[in-house]
């Protein structure tokens, strides 16, 4: 079994702790005062549109970029000072994977494990089989998805306590995405921390307990997904009896549902979490049929934060 919590390194309560991080390139601030906290053992979603500064933040966490300002601790260590030590305990999967074109997949796995100095050969064999990867082939013959699989196998098979995944599934087919989700869940069960940067909302929603949403290098919202759903509205749909349409509309307004506008029998409204019991009992009492109530998708959270509001 894995034993990375033993030995010299005590488990941290906070795997990643970023305060007021600023990263400038010339005058352009790619990250501008970002806070990010990832607790040990959690699967943390890191969401934002393209160019929001996700990859820049991640490169600072790994010590590839020097922070312009702010306090950064990964596994309790400052990556500006002791990046190598952090990286030994981290697996990193970039979004765009290039590998050494003249090596075979197996040779790349050997090289990465050899340089890291620790290896779980059994886990690696199992993952190679699961991902249906032909590791005897030379990397230059691999598709984008296959190159990504090599790096994912290396990342999950390494004996590391933190996985930093930067849009890791962009080249995988749906079956492999499912496998990837399984791997992340297994990693979580083993007690590893995962930072999953993504713009695929469904993926984050299925995997992550907590999310951090950023835009233009700034924090927009952060917290547990369950708590965030408070803020969002649920979708309620129902089919009303003909004679109750006007009555229901009035009573919805009095509950506080703005703009129910059920001009016809098919009701489709957005209801804040605290109003749901009242709305549902109203619908039941009104003999409505086909009632559905769907919790807010991350999509709507995302749209709410990133939508360009027309002036």
């Amino acid at each position: 079994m894995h034993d990375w919590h033993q030995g010299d390194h005590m488990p941290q309560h906070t795997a990643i702790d970023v305060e007021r991080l600023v990263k400038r390139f010339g005058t352009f601030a790619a990250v501008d005062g970002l806070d990010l906290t990832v607790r040990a053992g959690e699967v943390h979603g890191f969401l934002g549109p393209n160019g929001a500064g996700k990859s820049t933040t991640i490169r600072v966490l790994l010590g590839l970029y020097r922070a312009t300002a702010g306090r950064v601790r990964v596994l309790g260590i400052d990556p500006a000072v002791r990046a190598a030590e952090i990286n030994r305990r981290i697996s990193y999967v970039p979004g765009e994977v290039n590998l050494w074109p003249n090596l075979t997949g197996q040779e790349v796995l050997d090289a990465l494990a050899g340089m890291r100095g620790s290896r779980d050969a059994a886990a690696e064999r199992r993952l190679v089989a699961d991902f249906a990867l032909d590791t005897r082939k030379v990397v230059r013959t691999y598709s984008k998805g296959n190159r990504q699989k090599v790096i994912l196998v290396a990342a999950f098979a390494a004996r590391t306590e933190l996985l930093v995944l930067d849009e890791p599934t962009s080249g995988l087919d749906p079956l492999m995405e499912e496998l990837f989700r399984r791997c992340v869940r297994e990693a979580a069960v083993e007690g590893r921390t995962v930072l999953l940067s993504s713009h695929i909302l469904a993926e984050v929603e299925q995997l992550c307990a907590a999310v951090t949403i950023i835009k233009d290098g700034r924090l927009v919202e952060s917290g547990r997904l369950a708590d965030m759903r408070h803020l969002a509205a649920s979708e309620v749909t129902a089919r009303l009896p003909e004679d109750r349409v006007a009555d229901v509309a009035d009573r919805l307004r009095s509950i506080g549902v703005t703009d129910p506008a059920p001009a016809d029998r098919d009701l489709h409204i957005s209801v804040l979490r605290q109003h749901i019991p009242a709305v549902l009992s109203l619908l039941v009492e009104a003999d409505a049929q086909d009632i559905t109530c769907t919790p807010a998708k991350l999509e709507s959270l995302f749209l709410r934060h990133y939508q360009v509001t027309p002036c």
Partner: protein
Amino acid sequence: MLILLRLMLHRHRVLITSWLVLLVAVTGATVSAYQSTYPTAEQRRTATDLAQHSAATTLMYGNLADPGTPALMFTWEIGAIATILAAIMAVLVAISLTRAAEDDGTLELVRTTGIDARVPLRCALLMLAGVAATLALGCTGGLGLAAGHVDAVTWPGAAAFGTVVGLTFLIVGMVTVVLAQVAATAGSARLLGFAVVGAAFGIRALADTRHVGWLNWLTPLGLRATVRPFAENRWWPLATYLVVVAALAWFAAFLAGRREYGAGLIRRRDSRSTRLNIRSSLGLTARLARRPVLTWTVGVACLGTLFSAMGSGVVHQSQQGDLGGFLGSQLGGGNPVAGYFGYCGTVVGMAVTAFAVLSVLRARQDELGGLTDHILATGARRWKPLASQVAVTAVGTLIILVVTGALSALIAPTVINGPDVAIRAFTYTIGQWPSAMVAAGWTALLIGLWPRLTGLAWLPLIAGGLLALLGQLLGIPQSVRDLGVFQHVPDVAAPGPDARGLLILLTVAGATLLLGLAGITRRNITTD
């Protein structure tokens, strides 16, 4: 099609213009030196006689035509150098325009815009023709300006010379485009192209030394012998070769239609079940450098041994009297054996320095490609990938030089009579290691401190090469020429060899490397 041409031109403008400038400069700047080196007809007569009876210079440059005017001497010596450079340029440009764009995927983007699949190749062929024309015009102009100042230099002769250089480029370029359709990758196509240039040189040397004139018709490097600029200015051979060029272009297009995109007609093995047993980034870098080191060792060893082997005439000649012109300036005074091997060492030194620069530049390419990220993400220290690359380059350079030096030391004593031939052949070769290390250290410094300026990595090679090869001919003072990296190897057979120059080179190499390593730990690791 016009847009694609402009795109190609824009993408390769640095490669193309720097080669054009180099070639035009080499032709334009050297011609007047032949006038000043041999001001009287008598001196010319002596030099011409010597050159015409030397197997070595004939092998290197061809037959010097009578009556040995400065224009003809220029065509003979600088013409040989310029056509070889044009041939090398042709291989590099032709591959960049064709297979390299396929291998890096940029051509795929171009093709998805819906253009006819045959258009990119046609554009590449047109580009080659355009570059050839520019090259011909540039050399003609650079040379023609000397008309009236240098004996026997005329505008028609200059035009014939310029056209020879341009046509050499075009023929080699077209052959390379054909090879690009056959070879499995851009890299192997480039190697095949260089092999063709080597073969072209060999055929030309055979034709001139064995007096089999018709063989010169079979090699692009023999164009000077068939066209005879400044002597007869025969234009019809040029027309003949244009037909050959058209046939090659057609053949390339024909082959292009019969292969898969991104793959040559030759297929390669894509599968093997080998394992890799490495413990550090140094191990990985060493494994990746295996093939290039092997290729370069074979190439440089062949080049060095060829030069050592054909030295008999030169050494004999300079033992008798004096050699003039380019080669004479190379050998200088002193012991003829030492002078000759010093010159061979300079040529070998330039080749291994090119290897060293390319090899260290890999560190930057790997960084931009995201490969360095993978290495650092396993917990390697910041400076490790660059340091590994420089270390592997140092060892690779040493391997190339030891093999080349050992082969030369074996072959040279069998053809050259003189004292301490073997030891000189070996030490003048191996003594170039510090020069290559300066270039390696300088490249590491650029990567560490100014990664955007890595194009300047070639500075020590180009400046050092020009100072070593043309410095004396152009009358550049010794104190300036000493700044070049290639001419600091002492004669170990002479009493009290002075190795201070080499120690300075090694110190510079070490200092630049350390600055580079310090720089890379302080800057961002970027990908593109």
